[in-house]
């Protein structure tokens, strides 16, 4: 029984982490039809910024740090979109390659700046004591992370579904040409969404830090996860990304616990099955 409860909570916390990682990717992919391969690097940059900030200023609060890192990464993302991606807008393949190149630049810059050692992101003091419930022990921070992910999901839902900006984004996702025709400034929207996506990744990087630590290669470990979640959940659908994150969280956690030999493929199996039978993903609005 304890096994199922602990691994269930593990699945939820991993799902929360995956949502913070992949929601930004989903937003960008949905609107811009761009597989932003820099996303893992944005996430890693966030983790490093958080690790360094929290180590240097011990009084700093992780939530404030996450917002700060989110803003920095968002600004960087905005610059990248304005200065590089827009120039390549007629060349989608070129755009993807450029995002891949950018991810190499960021990861090498992190290596030069912060060295090759893993740097831990300290767990907030008040959350360091494990939670004890009915005789089992679970890290409090992971529980809080689930709450944070759900809060972020609700906030994003309101942004997309209830605001004017959200309505424009939805219009852009559904039919870009038509949106342009009715006067929606699609290219400015691109920049905003790219900033937003990058910012969520940066903030998510900080919040994932206490579980993951900052280390060279974090970007390459995270990027496939974002891709899997988004492909499974459906392109352009935040709800899909949300459900996809938790599905992957459960499959990964129980898969590696029950069938450790399958650890390498356990993440890809559900994705392949979904692609085979439902190419647009579980909740996709458009096909890839």
């Amino acid at each position, binding site marked *: 029984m304890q096994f199922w409860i*602990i691994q269930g909570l593990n699945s939820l916390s991993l799902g929360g*982490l995956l949502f913070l990682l992949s929601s930004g990717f989903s937003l960008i992919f949905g609107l811009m039809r761009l597989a932003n391969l820099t996303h893992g690097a944005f996430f890693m940059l966030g983790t490093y910024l958080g690790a360094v900030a929290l180590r240097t200023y011990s009084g700093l609060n992780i939530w404030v740090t996450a917002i700060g890192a989110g803003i920095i990464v968002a600004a960087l993302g905005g610059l990248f979109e304005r200065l590089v991606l827009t120039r390549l807008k007629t060349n989608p393949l070129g755009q993807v390659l450029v995002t891949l190149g950018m991810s190499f630049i960021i990861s*090498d810059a992190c290596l030069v700046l912060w060295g090759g050692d*893993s740097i*831990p992101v300290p767990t907030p003091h008040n959350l360091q004591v494990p939670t004890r419930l009915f005789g089992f022990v679970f890290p409090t921070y992971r529980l809080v992370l689930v709450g944070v992910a759900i809060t972020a999901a609700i906030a994003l839902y309101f942004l997309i579904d209830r605001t004017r900006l959200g309505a424009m984004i939805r219009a852009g996702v559904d039919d870009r040409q038509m949106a342009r025709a009715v006067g929606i400034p699609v290219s400015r929207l691109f920049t905003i969404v790219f900033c937003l996506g990058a910012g969520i990744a940066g903030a998510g990087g900080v919040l994932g830090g206490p579980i993951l*630590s900052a280390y060279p*290669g974090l970007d390459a470990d995270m990027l496939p996860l974002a891709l899997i979640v988004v492909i499974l959940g459906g392109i352009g659908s935040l709800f899909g990304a949300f459900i996809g994150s938790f599905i992957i969280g459960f499959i990964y956690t129980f898969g590696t616990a029950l069938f450790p030999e399958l650890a390498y493929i356990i993440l890809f199996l559900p994705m392949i099955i979904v692609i085979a039978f439902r190419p647009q993903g579980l909740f996709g609005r458009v096909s890839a």
Partner: protein
Amino acid sequence: MTISRRQFVSSLAGAGVATMASPNLAFAQNSGPIRIGLLAAKTGPLASGGIDMELALTMFMKERDYTLAGRKVDLIVADTAGVPATARTKAQELVEKNDVHCIIGPLAAFEALAIADYLTEKQVPTLGVAAAEDMTQRHPSPWFVRLTSTSAQCAYPLADYAAKELKYKKIVTIADDFAYGHEMCAGFQRAFEDNGGKIIQKIFTPLATPDYGSYVAQVKNADAIFLGTAGSNGFRFLRQFIEYGLKDKMAVIGGMTALDESVLRNMGDEASGIVTTSWYSAELDNPLNKAFAPAFRKQFKYDPGYYAASTYLSGEVLEGALKTIKADAENKKALMAAIRSNDVETIRGLVKFDEFGNAVGDVYIRKVTRSDGRLVNSVIKTYPDVSQFWTYDKTEFLKGPVYSRDYPPAKNLEL
């Protein structure tokens, strides 16, 4: 720089003897610098170790004013990026373009294996760091020596210590799912179970594991957990292990890279008390290390660990051999013979080589303690002259297959 009279005389003498020893060699060829190639991963996920390898070897050369056995030295550093194919290209470049006399490195087993055949074919003396067992067991090369340890060599003494002194009965092992982790856990298991202990669970995690939570939650109840990890993965696992409150329930012990000095410098008090094993510690109390470790710390602001020590050690062994052959590095056979036959006092203690070219030397059981405000690996016991075959019979040992995930078979797993 100026050349002192003694250096001048000794280099003349060296050249003279060398010319006598191999009369076909032109004098001019012999008077240039000795070219030493270092293969180190300075970028990519292994960069932390690779950078330390370069720093320490450069420091070694600077201390000697880039002169070994009276002859100038050119150190050529090539970045393998931790990729086997790149390691192969760079090795070829060092041999064919730079015409190096010997090679030090590389760090990872898969890099070393990718270049082993080439270097043997080209007859380049290689001072290795990588730990793959078979490089000095079932497939040794006359041109390869290893100054550090095989994957399992340092694990045997720890298994012995865990069974006899710590009186552990049941242990869980966890390691990265590749040859290094398999081999180390296999060796640990063999020695521990031969001493009456039981390995009740073996966990191998993929190199890219996003979340260790699901693995931590699987760990069965035992006296201790053995970390056969290297670099960031073990460190990340350990943090989750502590977060789940398991450190209060069972002890943690580790292999030669699990709590390396490079990992310790990013840890806090949670690491205190963990017992690990290695052929080196920055705290070693011998005159050479008493000079090296503080000097390294003074220059780079952290303690040297496995990787830094490995290349400094390579420098020491190489210098010893060059002195024996009077700096005649062109005579590769003599150089290799001298490397293998010399017993050299180094920062890790006295190093000898067995007939397969693997180091026989002291292995240290260490405990993480705090000293001058930083975490260090204090030596608590020394196992003298540990061989890669431990106490097993060499012939019998080599008859068996190489260690792997499933060999030797684990008979005491709890389901």
